[in-house]
């Protein structure tokens, strides 16, 4: 329970419709039974004791100030699509920010100012009406634009539109003190066109490479970059679940190439960047191709289990998927296609047929289908590195995963999803894992060991900087391994901005240690201080 006085004060701010502390109401926001099934959710997940839905920046400020006055821990969230952004401590006041639905597009300056409740599908749909676009992230079209820009925001389209920290422009950031900081050009006027702003660029603290999952304050409004697209319509077609945006093929097309080797695929990706062509370049896990063809979960497993030589099929699959867009004209597409084919030829790649429509990445990204396969999913690493370094980590993880299969779904050595970013300046690797949440306790605990202990150790050993590890446990397990003082610096920022540790406590830096300490089956395997 939060103190009655605090409850009444918050009720005064938002009105009785937008606050509840009834357990049956609050249960909707728990991570414990929310189907994530991750160890964080199972071990740390709790029901909030109070849910509040503020509607304005001022209301959030007042709630934060009341929370500080009564020393109440609070967790803000937009779509609640990440375990770290869920309630995981006692007496949590949960701020559901879905009422922030404002969206203003400035077509001349190519940006959109979004409230925290706006999701990517909505932003993309409205942007396309102006001949503009942004990427739709791996998290899915259903995730919030603002929080995703704060923590992640990768998709094959980041090849062209770049990293999220550089797509953030002006924003309203409510500090844990309740004060509002306006970043970028919003600091000195009403136009959010300029991300860097006139003073120090605080985006490094707001997000850096990954962000703070709501533990350094609450962003209620953000201006994000949009990019020029073309004005040809992308007609929506089909009935759910078989829906897609039809491509105008003279202006945009997917190309699939089978490369003779992993090395050839990597060089192909670098060549694309050198030639400064394409809108996306990505290698997709083999299972995704089966997902795309399957009519149901049962159909997927029928197909996946059928063919002989699956290991060879998976490890020998070097399919590169490239999206070309004629942004300015059909001629641009023609030109880029010629360059693409020339590169393919030089790398010994064979052009394959593929479906010409958007089933993912423009307006639709079905991250949820990751849960559909087995009932549970999580990525054990997400990292930006050079393209080839990222792939090496994927290969190491494939070996580790083999040791933990089962409980992990057999995927026969797949090395994960990797792609080129920023025209090949960097690569992105995400290593995907599927398991059965209804398995025996013994198998579930083995899964937890893989995720919380074996995986992070592999990352440390291979020197890979995973976003998950960076946010989860730089304190003791891996922080010191990455640098002498990153974890200390991060803690000082938190101490300075949130001395009471009310804002999404206990902070973002110690989730692994906390899970390990609270789960006896993990604690007995802990071999670090």
């Amino acid at each position, binding site marked *: 329970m939060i103190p009655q006085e605090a409850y009444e004060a918050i009720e005064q701010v938002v009105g009785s419709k937008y606050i509840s502390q009834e357990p049956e109401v609050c249960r*909707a926001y728990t991570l414990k039974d*929310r*189907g994530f099934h991750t160890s964080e959710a199972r071990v740390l997940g709790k029901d909030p004791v109070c849910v509040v839905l503020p509607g304005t920046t001022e209301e959030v400020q007042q709630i934060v100030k009341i929370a500080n006055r009564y020393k109440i821990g609070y967790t803000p969230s937009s779509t609640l699509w990440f375990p770290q952004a869920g309630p995981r401590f006692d007496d949590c006041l949960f701020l559901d920010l879905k009422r922030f639905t404002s969206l203003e597009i400035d077509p001349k300056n190519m940006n959109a100012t979004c409230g925290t409740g706006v999701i990517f599908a909505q932003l993309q749909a409205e942007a396309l009406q102006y001949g503009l676009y942004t990427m739709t992230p791996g998290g899915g079209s259903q995730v919030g634009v603002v929080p995703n820009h704060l923590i992640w925001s990768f998709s094959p389209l980041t090849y062209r539109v770049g990293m999220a920290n550089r797509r953030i422009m002006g924003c309203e950031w409510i500090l844990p003190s309740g004060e509002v900081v306006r970043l970028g050009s919003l600091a000195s006027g009403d136009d959010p066109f300029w991300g860097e702003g006139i003073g120090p660029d605080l985006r490094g603290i707001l997000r850096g490479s990954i962000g703070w999952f709501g533990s350094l304050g609450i962003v209620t409004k953000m201006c994000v970059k949009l990019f020029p697209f073309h004005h040809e319509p992308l007609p929506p077609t089909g*009935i759910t679940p078989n829906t897609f945006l039809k491509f105008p093929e003279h202006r945009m097309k997917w190309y699939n190439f089978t490369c003779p080797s992993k090395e050839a695929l990597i060089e192909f990706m670098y060549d694309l960047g050198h030639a400064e062509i394409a809108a996306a370049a990505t290698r997709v896990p083999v299972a995704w191709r089966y997902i795309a063809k399957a009519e*149901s979960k049962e159909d997927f497993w029928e197909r996946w289990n059928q063919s002989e030589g699956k290991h060879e099929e998976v490890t020998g699959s070097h399919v590169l998927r490239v999206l070309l867009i004629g942004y300015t004209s059909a001629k641009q597409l023609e030109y880029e296609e010629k360059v693409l084919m020339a590169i393919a030829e030089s790398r010994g790649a064979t052009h394959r047929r593929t479906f010409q429509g958007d089933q993912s990445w423009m307006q639709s990204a079905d991250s949820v*289908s990751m849960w559909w396969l087995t009932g549970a999913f999580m990525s054990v690493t997400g990292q930006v590195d050079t393209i080839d370094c990222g792939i090496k980590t994927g290969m190491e993880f494939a070996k580790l995963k083999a040791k933990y299969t089962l409980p992990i779904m057999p995927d026969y050595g797949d090395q994960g999803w990797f792609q080129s970013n920023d025209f090949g300046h960097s690569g992105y690797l995400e290593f995907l894992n599927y398991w059965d949440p*209804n398995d025996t306790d013994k*198998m579930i605990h083995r899964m937890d060991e893989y995720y919380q202990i074996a995986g992070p150790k592999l990352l440390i050993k291979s020197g890979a900087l995973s976003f998950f590890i960076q946010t989860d446990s730089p304190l003791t397990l891996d922080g010191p391994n990455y640098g002498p003082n990153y974890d200390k610096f991060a803690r000082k920022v938190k101490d300075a901005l949130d001395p009471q540790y009310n804002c999404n406590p206990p902070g973002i830096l110690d989730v692994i240690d906390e899970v390990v300490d609270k789960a006896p089956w993990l604690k007995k395997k802990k071999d670090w201080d």
Partner: protein
Amino acid sequence: MARAKSVKTKTKKPTAQKAVASKATKAKTTIPQLEDYHWDALNCCGCKGCIWVDHVYCTGVKYGQRCPSVHEYELDTYSAIGRNKLALGLLDGTFEFNETTLDIIYKCCLCGACDVGCKRNLDLDPGMVLETLRIRAVEEGKAPLPAHKKVTDKITSSGNRYGSSAGSRANWLPKGIKTSKNPEMVYFVGCNSSYKDKNIAVATAGILDAAKVKWALFPEEACCGHPYYVAGMADETLKQAKRNIAALKKSGAKTIVTSCAECYKTWKVDYPKLMDKPTEKMGYNVIHITELAAEKIAAGKLKPTHSINLKIAYHDPCNLARLSDDWVPWHGTRGKWGVTEPPKQYRRGSDVPYQPARDILNAIPGLELTEFFRIKENAMCCGAGGGVAEAYPEMARNTADHRLEEAQDIGAEAIASACPYCNDNLSYAAADRDRPIGVYDVTELLYASLTGRGI
């Protein structure tokens, strides 16, 4: 056979499922139980596919949602996610049926938007979780809600939801229309068109006549039982089903035509569901008048000739659209990875009559069909469904008003639907909220175009 053949690990049953030992599951019954959908509730990962319009069809912020409950009450509690978690809490004894839980359960139109959304990516059955929650509430003696009881008592006493006399049920039938003694099909009129919006019944009869169909009125018609079902009164619905099916058998007819979307879905989906039979084995066919009329127009046997100059939007009634896939029972087991054995057939709202009403409207001269932003499986409910109109009229009107606003935003002068309850609620809201927009049933428009009578 779809199984994970290479995997031999034993699957552990979820703990909560073990803990459940309700009287209902012990007794033999064909009525679906909440426990049957425990797996679905447990494996909801909270993606909110139940709330948003299919992303491919999303047009932006304003009309980006399709869940009327969340539109009205905003908390996740009122989404399928919240109700799934509530179901788990009721099953494991954390929660009980009380004012709050009943409020969460019944402030829902049972419109199926969450169900088709979930089946885009997860193939869970949130729709059945919602329905069995209500069935359980009644079994526990905590429901029906007083507002629902008012209606269902009338059905029990007089065979129709208005408490009108059974003898006056067919009073709407115009004298000039003759029914057949050897009918190909029987017209199940429904309570609304029998007693209230009789113009729909008149138009339907006129269309059947014009199409030279041999038809008759359903013998000794009584309510289909839909109000019972949405209140959670499964036993009473089953009784009504048996009564009506017996009456149909007596008539010798094999095909039922309806003009009401609720009756259509009840006959097509809920009767089989409560009898635990597939729709195709029920021994009868159900068609909606829009399906029949569209077929006759395509075959040249109905010719709408009189112009109706209107720019009109078609509102997909939930019960005629995404909710009306054939019922296919599934009694199997889940193995490794949750794979079903025998393979479950998923009802995704994809094999349903979205098109016939549109074909009819397109065939009417002068009528310009324009589409809502949210159509077919993505349509926003009118707000009347699931007993909401009776128990939570403010939510019903607000939802209808939101739909009217959408119609105005696409420049429609009027809305056509194919369900008397949608028409009622939308008309009421248009008057109540002062929105100058007409609301018609498709049958009225077609009949007017066939005959030249005004609308």
